[in-house]
């Protein structure tokens, strides 16, 4: 049951081959068996069973939706009414929101079952899921390796079949990078496609929620439920949501694929590069035309990102002050003590590092040199994407420079850690959609291929990904021990 795709599960439920209660129990058992992955922060067993029963009722009534009764899990960054939302931090270890994120509401409306809340880097700051207050998540392909981050729990859970699919969020690669490292499909939609309401902010102008699934078709089904304008999020965009499955089977003959030379230069593991070349050859066989392009400003993405994202986070995380909710230090002596100890004791090292960087970048005398400069670079990068996507349909490249690295390997070297997002960050700065799809293995570890499209071209990206998955089976590989 747990190896079926969303479409297959939906058919099985509708045909009453199995019930949502049985399906949910199956996933809950698997979660219990594979606790060593540390993929979940909270498992909502009772809620899941209650939702499963309601879903079975709905199926019996004939009012079921495509996702009704399907067990999924939420990254613990999405607020869930009555269920603790920690954002991977000690700061919110006891926080329960009195509201649902819009994304959560949408899944509830569709009748999906929530198995629990998935582990993540603290406040989504990290590329390895090692900054979580609740401990590192392990990669199902090698438990000594990281699953990537920040949506590491989501990637590990989907890869190990501990959820039929999951949500993630992507600020600089946090959906795509763990998807690549865990061998699953991840989609970061266009900025503004999915509501950010109730999704705890890291860097507001870059954050975007999206699906993490086993296949492109599953991603289409998930995105269908998540996407859409939300009047509670002023940055969500009011453009119609297409039927994401309608064009999955469109032929790729004549597709123009752009390969930026900047994506295939120094820093990219040669075995990963070779794997990607093979994947791109597959597209050539599907009728695509390969065009070499150049995006000269890509190299500026990391420095620009590490000004903008920390600047925004330094303000976004100011609300965690120990005054109204969340962690408060014991016996504060005065207001300053309350602030400094509550924040000092509850935030982890990486979060503090980014708050300090951001505070510095916004300070009088530095603002022009850092923040404004970074915004200019951001515009240049957006221009690069617009120019490139005017001449090609899709840009392809690596998601990560290498396969999953070892737990602990980069924790003492933040720059090395930051560089692991070198191929994903520019996409967030431009706001365009991008996917990571499984494209092979190097030494038994998954490699992801990145597809980058124009604004609101998610349906096209899903079509391009799906066609590849019709002629390859990298996405169907199951990590040993999780069959």
């Amino acid at each position: 049951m747990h190896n079926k795709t969303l479409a297959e599960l939906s058919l099985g439920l509708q045909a009453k081959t199995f019930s949502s209660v049985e399906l949910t129990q199956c996933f809950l058992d698997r979660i219990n068996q594979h606790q060593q992955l540390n993929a979940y922060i909270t498992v909502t067993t009772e809620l899941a069973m209650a939702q499963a029963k309601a879903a079975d009722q709905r199926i019996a009534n004939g009012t079921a939706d495509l996702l009704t009764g399907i067990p999924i899990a939420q990254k613990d960054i999405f607020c869930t009414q009555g269920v603790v939302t920690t954002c991977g931090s000690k700061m919110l270890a006891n926080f329960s929101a009195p509201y649902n994120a819009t994304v959560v509401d949408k899944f509830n409306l569709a009748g999906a079952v929530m198995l629990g809340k998935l582990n993540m880097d603290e406040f989504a700051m990290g590329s390895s899921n090692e900054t979580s207050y609740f401990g590192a998540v392990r990669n199902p392909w090698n438990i000594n390796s990281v699953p990537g981050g920040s949506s590491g729990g989501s990637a590990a859970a989907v890869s190990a079949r501990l959820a039929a699919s999951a949500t993630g969020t992507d600020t600089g690669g946090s959906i795509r990078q763990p998807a690549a490292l865990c061998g699953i499909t991840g989609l970061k939609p266009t900025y503004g496609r999915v509501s950010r309401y109730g999704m705890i902010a890291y860097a507001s102008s870059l954050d975007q929620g999206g699906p993490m699934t086993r296949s492109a078709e599953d991603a289409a089904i998930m995105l269908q439920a998540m996407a859409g304008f939300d009047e509670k999020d002023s940055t969500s965009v009011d453009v119609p949501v297409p039927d994401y499955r309608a064009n999955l089977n469109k032929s790729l003959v004549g597709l123009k694929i752009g390969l930026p030379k900047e994506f295939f230069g120094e820093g990219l593991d040669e075995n990963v590069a070779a794997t990607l070349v093979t994947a791109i050859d597959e597209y050539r066989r599907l009728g695509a035309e390969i065009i070499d392009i150049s995006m000269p400003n890509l190299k500026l993405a990391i420095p620009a990102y590490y000004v903008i994202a920390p600047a925004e986070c330094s303000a976004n995380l100011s609300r965690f002050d120990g005054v109204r909710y969340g962690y408060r230090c014991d016996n504060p002596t005065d207001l300053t003590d309350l602030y400094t100890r509550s924040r000092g004791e509850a935030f982890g090292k990486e979060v503090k590092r980014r708050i300090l960087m951001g505070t510095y970048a916004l300070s009088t005398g530095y603002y022009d040199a850092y923040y404004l400069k970074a915004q200019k670079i951001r515009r240049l990068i957006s221009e690069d994407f617009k120019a490139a996507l005017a001449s090609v349909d899709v840009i392809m490249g690596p998601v990560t420079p290498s396969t999953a690295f070892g737990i602990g390997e980069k924790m003492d070297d933040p720059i090395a850690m930051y560089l692991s997002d070198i191929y994903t960050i520019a996409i967030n700065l431009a706001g365009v959609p991008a996917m990571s799809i499984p494209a092979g293995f190097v030494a038994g570890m998954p490699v992801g291929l990145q597809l980058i499209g124009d604004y609101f071209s998610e349906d096209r990206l899903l079509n391009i990904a799906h066609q590849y998955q019709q002629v390859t089976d990298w996405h169907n590989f199951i990590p040993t021990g999780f069959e």
Partner: protein
Amino acid sequence: MEWETVIGLEIHTQLSTRSKIFSGAATAYGAEPNTQACAVDLGLPGVLPVLNQEAVRMAVIFGMAIEANIAPYSVFARKNYFYPDLPKGYQISQMDHPIVGVGHLDIEVDGVIKRIGVTRAHLEEDAGKSLHEDFHGLTGIDLNRAGTPLLEIVSEPDMRNAKEAVAYMRKLHELVRYLGICDGNMQEGSFRCDANVSVRPKGQVEFGTRAEIKNINSFKFVEKAINHEVERQIALLESGGKVVQETRLYDSVKDETRSMRSKEEANDYRYFPDPDLLPVIIDEAFKAQIKTELPELPDAKKQRFKVDYQLDEESVAILTASRALADYFEAVNKKSGCEAKLCANWITGDLSAALNKAGLDISASPINDERLSGLLTRIGDGTISGKIAKQVFELLWQSAASADDIIAEQGLTQISDTGAIVAIIDKIIADNPNQVEQYRSGKDKMFAFFVGQVMKAMQGKANPAEVNKILKERL
């Protein structure tokens, strides 16, 4: 040495929108603490601000009233600082791109009109309140006010004494109420002021170092606070000291200003554009729409009242102090068909006195324009005398009846029937031979005695003009 004072004011105007600037919570004053604060106002994680369009409309109409440039593109920015009544750790405000640009306001002091420049006006959210009493050494936080829309109106340093500052503040206070964008309630903090004050030797072009006096919430305190600060700065400079740039707090109890924080201690607010909100785009169509909603402004109304109604300065000033009162006057003038002067006298006299006594605003007057008009109509057509009218007014105040009903019910109709008056007068002349003798021997004052006697006999209902006329003939 002769010193010159330089003053600029920053006025925080709470906009009278029904809901908050970035959330749907109500803005009403005086509710139980923390009952009017939703998830957005509390700064809970993941929630997002959504701009209240009504606040934008109010800012734009204000900009138009001061003939300012309305920015086609304005941006909300985060002003970062930690304080317990600031739930997000930043205030959403505007910095580089305020919604209202350069404008002006004309004030009048001692008959001289002076133009005061307005540098800018920007939208922002109010903070909550810290309550230091009743918490046994701890502090309580009430977030009901958090997120209330504010329009911060920043003047040029164009005022040269406290009187001008007060005149400017009053003028602005009148304007925002005219525009219906602020209730102007200063006790409740709907209209509060920070004053930037400096002094310089007369004739010097450069400004002196300024001090900012925070949070002054009455016209009286503005004048006092500024005068005190000016005295303090002059005394300091004349004794060889230096004014330091700082923020000072006016203590209305001790009537003094004292230092809050120096420039060095000032926060670095680290403003940057708020990524949760889109820039506000104001197009010509929106402006054209707002323009049609712009009411007649105080200066224009005053001028028109002088010219059209031929009223004296004082009456005009009282009647145009609020739009509601001016509208009331115009309605009464139109409906009663009476002379403007009569209408003005009744409104600025008896009605205003009764309202003041009852502590009511014109909008809550027990006598609406319709009913006062009914009364004045009957004075105008001679049905009742001015004296009887005062009785009717009392009854109008106490009941819901119309003037005509009261006059009929109480039998207060003025007697203009010459025959009846003649009969009474003849009887009084016959009954008071001594007084008649005195009058006829040249004691003119005795005339009033006869008028009084007639009125008394006729219970005040006689038409005074007729009484005078007949008395003169008969005596």
